[in-house]
């Protein structure tokens, strides 16, 4: 892989806190190596800002290996930047070339209010899980792990859905700010396993109810979420959620 250095112009959203209005700020960074990660480029910029006595740019990040789901930047019009099936922290600077201008915005959705600069509050996702994204089994209740065989195909599908990292890119990408990909991934994961079967009806109803309450939009199947999802979770899960919901609501007693 050829390495090269580049100079870039960054237009970054700055917002002091959730109350104040934000605006774009332009910064130049120089001699950025193509081997750096995007966040390391931000580290360089922040070091520069600190040395100039300015306020560094706040952004969420933690594991920097694409699994914790904390990083959340909307880069040049796409959540997590230009690469497919990728998180910001795994985006490397060889995706850009010398002289590029990069626009960086926070996730934008009323359900994800900005805390500062590029940091948003995604606690709505936790509350959706609280509504029913679990299997009610107290510690110690479990039977032997091999007591219930699970069809491999379903186990694989459940795993593919469970790969969701809860980053919120689906919401950021959706024109409706819908959280359906996130919710459906959890509903599918648990509905596909026999262990999740007893609660599948109440789960889907409760999770959708909470999703609506949090102020996310409805799904219109544009598939922008799937295109941007770092774990490439399929919109098929949304269709599965719809089926679960339809069935559960038809079967409801009152």
């Amino acid at each position, binding site marked *: 892989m050829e390495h090269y250095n580049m100079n870039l112009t960054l237009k970054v959203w700055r917002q002091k806190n959730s109350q104040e209005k934000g605006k774009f700020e332009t910064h130049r960074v120089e001699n950025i190596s193509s081997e750096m990660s995007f966040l390391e480029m931000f580290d360089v910029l922040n070091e520069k800002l600190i040395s100039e006595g300015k306020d560094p740019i706040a952004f969420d990040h933690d594991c920097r290996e694409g699994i914790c789901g904390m990083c959340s930047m909307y880069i040049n019009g796409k959540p997590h930047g230009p690469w497919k099936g990728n998180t910001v922290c795994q985006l490397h600077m060889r995706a850009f070339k010398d002289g590029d201008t990069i626009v960086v915005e926070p996730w934008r959705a009323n359900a994800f209010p900005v805390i500062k600069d590029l940091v948003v509050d995604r606690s709505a996702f936790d509350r959706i899980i609280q509504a029913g994204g679990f299997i009610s089994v107290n510690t110690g209740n479990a039977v032997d792990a091999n007591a219930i065989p699970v069809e491999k195909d379903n186990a694989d599908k459940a795993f593919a859905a469970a790969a969701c990292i809860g980053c919120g890119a689906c919401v950021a990408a959706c024109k*409706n700010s819908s959280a359906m990909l996130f919710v459906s991934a959890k509903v599918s994961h648990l509905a596909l396993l026999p262990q999740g079967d007893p609660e599948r009806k109440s789960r889907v109803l409760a999770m959708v109810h909470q999703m609506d309450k949090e102020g996310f939009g409805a799904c219109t199947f544009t598939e922008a979420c799937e295109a941007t999802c770092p774990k490439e979770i399929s919109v098929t899960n949304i269709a599965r959620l719809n089926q679960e919901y339809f069935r559960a609501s038809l079967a409801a007693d009152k």
Partner: protein
Amino acid sequence: MTWAQVFTSSVGKKITMALTGVFLILFLIVHVGVNACIWFNDGGEVFNRAANFLGENVVPRILEIGLFLFFILHIVQGLMLEVQNRSKRSIGYAVSYGNRGSRWYSRSMGLLGTLILLFLIIHLADFWVPSRFTHMSEVQLSDGKNVHNLYSLMQARFQNPFIVIIYVLGCISLAYHLAHGFTSSFRTLGVHNKRYIAMLRSLGYAFAIIVPLVFAMMPVSFYMGWVK
């Protein structure tokens, strides 16, 4: 989970859209079938007979009421959803994701639907209102029965090139609306099996191309004088 709760939830609203959408798709099949009768090129004999059958029979008349209700439900719910969905992001992006992540028409169902609504108003005023409420000339069929001469009305209307263009544009809007709406409605109703989704997708595209194309060919055929 009361019915009210079901149909006011985001998924429930989409179910309403999908159910009414599928019904409207069925209606389109009937509509396009009847209209295609003009190409018998028999001076509208078969077409007028078919149209009259629908107009005076009791079952289609009841269905017509349902059709209207579903149309209104589809339109009102659609517009409300569009407004609600837009309200979920107060501050927009400086750079949009655009066509990199989705097709433009899948993001523009509200716009396309509104265009179709405008077209629909013109269309109803053109044919349905005269046929049902105001006056319309009659013609005698070969078996001696007198029926509304919708055929001649069409023939007359589609001599005006602007009307023809409006109708063709309406059909194009419909095509894109269907290109997304057809498959999407089935997924909203819970079809998630990959194999059926693939079938429905192909079917949806075929439907979205063929049906509006046939519709669009009517005004064009009259205007060009392909049918007399």
